[in-house]
């Protein structure tokens, strides 16, 4: 897996995840009449998606280099576990007091925490077939 292909996977998966997050944010905000834009900015969403996908791609790169393709299953499991663990932070997150309906925040942020992993896992396997060989 070359660095160039690694970047291709990162940009594709992060791009898809970012679009999914932004669209979901728009739909959710309109459906529930809430505005969390001061906390969950588009910039933060993009950075989060790129960081998440970069970390996952790095894990893949290092894992494959270390023990070959058999590490993929374990890395995938780790990605899923870490995505689940990351939602604990959202449940305990304290929003600024001027933001109304904080009880609706987890409904927006929790699915978003899974978008980078979903996108990465959807993209990485077909791209790996080309990339690894």
């Amino acid at each position: 897996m070359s660095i160039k292909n690694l970047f291709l996977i990162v940009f594709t998966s992060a791009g898809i995840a970012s679009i999914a997050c932004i669209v979901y944010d728009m739909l959710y905000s309109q459906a529930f009449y809430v505005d969390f834009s001061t906390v969950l900015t588009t910039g933060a969403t993009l950075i989060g998606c790129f960081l998440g996908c970069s970390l996952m791609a790095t894990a893949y790169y290092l894992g494959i280099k270390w023990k070959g393709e058999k590490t993929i299953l374990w890395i995938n499991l780790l990605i899923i576990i870490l995505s689940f663990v990351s939602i604990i932070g959202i449940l305990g997150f304290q929003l600024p007091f001027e933001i109304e309906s904080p009880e609706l925040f987890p409904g927006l942020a929790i699915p978003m925490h899974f978008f980078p992993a979903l996108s990465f896992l959807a993209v990485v396997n077909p791209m790996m077939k080309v990339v690894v060989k």
Partner: protein
Amino acid sequence: MKKIKLALGLLSVLTLVAFIVVESVSWKLKEDGYSVNFKGGKVSGILKGMKSTILFDEANPEKSKFSVSLDVTTINTGNGMMNKHAQGTDALDAKQFPQITFESTSVTKKGSAYEATGKLTMKGITKEIIVPFTFENKGTEAIFKGKFSVLPKEFNITKSGTPDNLEIELTIPVTK
């Protein structure tokens, strides 16, 4: 006879003037500008839904009267789960006691500030408290600022995680 009538008339006018002078000024709450913040330990938040009757005169603070209520269901800690817990039966019990009220019994001047002694009712329990406050008069508008502490256990707030001491900070802009 005329002199008596004149004297009585003068007395009435003087009494009326004196009454007007000592009558406290009525202030109306500016709905959008006030804040009631609370903080203690890891808990912090705000309360809204304030309704108030404020009679206050800097020159005659002893004639002042405060009657303030807050809506418990408006509590916002910035976290949905914590808001729900705060309104639960072992915390503020918003269903049974939807309001927190304060009725002043006396107001005194303390240096450049003031102190309102009164009855705070929370979760159906009434306790006497003292609220030190300042008053910034800007003509037709003014701001009351106060800070005081309450002990949640005194009001039967026993939920685990509730701090022993809650500091309440008030900023109440008013207009004539």
